[in-house]
């Protein structure tokens, strides 16, 4: 049984996607029977496998959901060599996406996340156009050029803690993140 650990956030081409903390168990095919009792030491979310009693659910399981996990973990040999992330790339990522890979654990987490995504390389995509959106075969709706919205300055300004005379307030300018070493020095003294 191999376990992958995903924590904090995974960045993909500049878009931050936060995945809540979870322990993901990859089970072998013979399934694993777990009965959830009133035990306080439950890891969340529960493993999706056969014979799990869903105590808190009111509807029966949809027929389309397989009763047993239908996928298998990809063997290590089929994956491309693990990507090593050079320090300056980490720095660049941090500045682009404003996330923090400060600790060794953070970096290890990033590498594991990339490893997990490497499974995609096993799929043969020759001749297949990349899909941007599941809407790709839908018609793009064109709106008439008539005023329908706006004039809600009060409502919008209420959402902000600080406003100055109907303007939103932001910190001054665009302060770029300082370089790597300066950053570690700065953060050492911070509370996080």
């Amino acid at each position, binding site marked *: 049984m191999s376990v992958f650990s995903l924590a904090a956030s995974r960045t993909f081409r500049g878009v931050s996607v936060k995945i809540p903390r979870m322990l993901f168990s990859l089970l072998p095919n013979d399934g694993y029977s777990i009965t959830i009792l009133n035990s306080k030491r439950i890891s969340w979310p529960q493993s999706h496998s056969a014979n799990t009693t869903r105590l808190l659910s009111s509807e029966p399981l949809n027929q389309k959901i397989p009763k047993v996990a239908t996928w298998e973990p990809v063997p290590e040999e089929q994956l491309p060599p693990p990507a090593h992330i050079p320090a300056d790339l980490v720095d660049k990522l941090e500045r682009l996406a404003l996330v923090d890979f400060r600790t060794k654990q953070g970096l290890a987490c990033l590498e594991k996340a990339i490893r997990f995504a490497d499974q995609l390389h096993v799929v043969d995509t020759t001749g297949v156009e990349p899909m941007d959106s*599941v809407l790709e075969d839908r018609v793009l709706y064109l709106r008439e050029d008539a*005023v329908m919205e706006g004039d809600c300055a009060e409502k919008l300004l209420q959402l902000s803690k600080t406003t100055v005379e*109907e303007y939103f307030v932001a910190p001054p300018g665009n302060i770029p993140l300082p370089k790597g070493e300066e950053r570690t020095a700065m953060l050492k003294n911070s509370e996080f």
Partner: protein
Amino acid sequence: SSTKLFSGAPVRFSAPPNSLVSFFDASLPGTLPVLNKRCVEAAVMTGLALNCAVNRKSLFDRKHYFYADLPAGYQITQQRLPIAVDGVLTYSLLGGKKRNQVMRQNVTIKQIQLEQDSGKSLHDDVRSQTLIDLNRAGVGLMELVMEPDMSCGEEAAAAVRELQLILQALGTCQGNMSEGQLRVDANVSVHRPGEPLGVRTEVKNINSIRYLARAIDYEIQRQIDVLQRGGTVQNETRAYDSKSGFMPEPNLPPLILYEDDASLPTGIDACQVVVVQKIKEGLPELPSVKRDRLVQTYGILPEHSFTLVNEDGLVDYFEAVLKATKKEPRKVIGWVTNELLGHLKQQDMSVCQSPISPSALAELLELQETGHISSSVAKQVFQEMWRSPGKTALQITQEQDLGLVSDTAQLHIICQKVVDSHPDEVRVHAIRSGNKKVLNKLMGLVQKETKGRADPVLVRAILQKKTS
């Protein structure tokens, strides 16, 4: 357009802060972009007017960067597959020694893409904060990318002016640079002939065509100076460009345009489609076509036509004058492009501010045409009319007694006087009969006597007779 590119909030130049902002523009969670049909049509019109290939299928992308006036953290643009590509902008320069030769030049348009504008930030350094107004956030923009085909500020200014005229004729953009309706970022680099293009720097925040030309020439000179001193040109914005993250916009399917009504799929709603053929047929008269038409219709020279179209309202003024006078267009054009325009430029005025109306000018020209005043007097009267806007040409002529002296008897007397007081010249003229220089001199003297009011034709004839 009346509303923004992806939301139904209104587009206006000045309004109370954050009053033209929809929930989508403020990037509130749960909002989605809905494309404005008018913006698509405008982009297609502009693409067609600039001889572009309009892409039947174009895609939207997100360009990510962090800035306070971009609430979503990304801008929706069309980087991969824009709506129009590979066009040509033909512009004209007045060149040659007398700046009266119309030289046509081309700039290649790499692409036209639809994208969102960002909000406005006001920097308050005193209180160390930035004030954000999102009224402009989400307004539709057409970004035109041009190839480096131009080589000096004057060419760039002429190209942008032509673009302004085209956009104004199409009605897709009012092109007012000072109000930010037309924004130009100039990328300038220098290189020796035969060598590849040098490092480019970007000149931003240009708010007038005149400044554009000057800023570009200044930058060219600056780069040349740096290189001649052995230095290298630094590019600060380049680093920023390579960093920005692009990704496809997942909330918008591809934008499909249809060639003509025949290619429309069955059962499709007519207001949901943009048909390129229809837009092509509906294109208004473009400036270049207008110039040719003026040359054809009025028989004026191309450079005059160029000047007419280049100045807001001048064509209308010219045509109004023609309506009110029987004078030939070719004789009127000089008055409009030289006298009128000259005076306007001197005082930095626009045509609509002219103190002399088309009908007033027409009256003046009629006076000249019918022989009441000479051409030189006409110019004097023009000046006077400029200074005193209420007075008509006739009034001024009468007040200052500038009427043409056509009384032959009076002219005879004056001519005789001149001839008598210049016997030597007369002898020279008699010896080499028809010596024009002498005749002209005598004519000049007569005009001096009459304060320029003598009818030149009559005077010449009389002098000719008297000296032969």
